[in-house]
């Protein structure tokens, strides 16, 4: 397989996204660099999901420019996204992973071994032949991770993947995400769980009402928030 050119850094330049008369993203300018996980934090409705969809290329800006590795037209071959509620194909767990492998151009002869390795990586080896839609919520989220990793991504975008999961399932998802980050995959993850942000983040983007309020290293964000909104959010006040 020909190695595609890099999608990083991912740069948003004055990006605005409107749906009808509602402004979802408001003149957003930011740069996502390779390195430790970037966590996107903010109250519900602040535009986190839309920002991820935009990074993936599933949404187009109304104004402004998105460039990936300096290009505006890169195909999503080395990006993967994990939705809050992933859709399981009506097949077995193994077939779900094999589908993603086939789509990303893995030769047929290597697929079985790769499927086993990926299911092993997310701890679902025992459930390979179980219908995917009959897995529990946490198992489905891990299977979706295996499917995303099957694409051998350079950037992995995650939209609150643990929002509906119990602590044990959350921990296993976080472990997989951390392992992926250590293997060199750039993690960009939306979350409104501050504990999770502390556990995972290298840098934090804090969003309010579609605008980037604060962007900095995680330690700085938690210890010295520079905006009143971020300080209020960290205190646990309601930021609308």
């Amino acid at each position, binding site marked *: 397989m020909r190695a595609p050119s890099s999608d990083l850094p991912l740069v948003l330049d004055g990006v605005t996204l409107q749906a009808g008369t509602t402004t979802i993203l408001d003149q957003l300018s930011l740069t996502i660099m390779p390195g430790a996980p970037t966590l996107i934090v903010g109250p519900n409705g602040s535009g986190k999901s839309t920002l991820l969809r935009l990074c*993936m290329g*599933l949404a187009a800006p109304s104004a402004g420019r998105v460039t990936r590795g300096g290009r505006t037209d890169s*195909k*999503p*071959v080395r990006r*993967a*996204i994990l*939705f809050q509620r*992933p*859709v399981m*194909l*009506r*097949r*077995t767990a193994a077939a779900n992973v094999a*589908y*993603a492998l086939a*789509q990303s151009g893995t030769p047929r002869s290597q697929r079985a071994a790769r499927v086993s390795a990926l299911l092993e990586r997310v701890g679902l080896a025992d459930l390979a032949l179980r*219908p*995917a*839609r*009959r897995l529990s919520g946490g198992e489905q989220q891990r299977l979706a991770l295996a499917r995303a990793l099957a*694409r051998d991504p350079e950037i992995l975008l995650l939209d609150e993947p643990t929002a509906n999961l119990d602590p044990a399932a959350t921990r296993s998802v976080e472990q997989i995400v951390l392992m992926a980050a250590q293997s060199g995959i750039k993690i960009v993850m939306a979350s409104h769980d501050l504990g999770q942000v502390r556990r995972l983040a290298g840098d934090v983007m804090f969003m309010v009402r579609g605008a980037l309020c604060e962007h900095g290293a995680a330690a700085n964000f938690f210890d010295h928030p520079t905006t009143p909104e971020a300080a209020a959010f960290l205190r646990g006040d309601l930021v609308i």
Partner: protein
Amino acid sequence: MSDQFSAWQLILNGDAALFEIVRLSLAVSLSAVALAALVGMPFGALLALSRFPGRSVLVVVLNALMGLPPVVVGLAVYLLLSRSGPLGAMGILFTPTAMIIAQTILIVPIIAALARQTIEDLWTEYRDELTAMDIGPAGRMTTLLWDARFSLLTALLAGFGRAAAEVGAVMIVGGNIDGFTRTMTTAVALETSKGNLPLAMGLGLVLVAIVLAINAAAWGTRAWSERQVG
């Protein structure tokens, strides 16, 4: 066929003429369902996934064609295949082949319209995920057709029900020739008008039983495979 035989006796005795009629009916209708599925499923999926001017008109027309009168289809196919018609040289009018063609035309809209609806519903669920995986148009179609397979079984059953029950189209293009193009429905019509009610009733019972059995089998298959695949 004489009047003293009751419908049940005909069935229980395994009357050869009756079984030939049943066999031909099933062969024609099942062939038509298979052909119509080959055309209707991809067409329905394509329509579900395409956006072009006039699409809604096409969807409405397709839905309306589900109610196409069999006699009108029969007449159209008759005109095509009759000796002076454009396909008259093939010489297939009043053969089982002509009957299969007519029934296929009759049920393609049913299968295509139901497949379109099913695929479109599934597409709203799958859109983001498949787009994120960069699946092309052909891949989307095959993925959705495969993942909707259990729901699409209902479309096939609707098509089969229509084909097995219709009399107008096979009567016109088949001609109800004894031992050659006589089906259950045309035989029931003929025997009733002749006053041979026992045979007509026997055939009617067999027809209903077969449709019931095929639907039960399909229901069972669907329930079983959904348990397997979820």
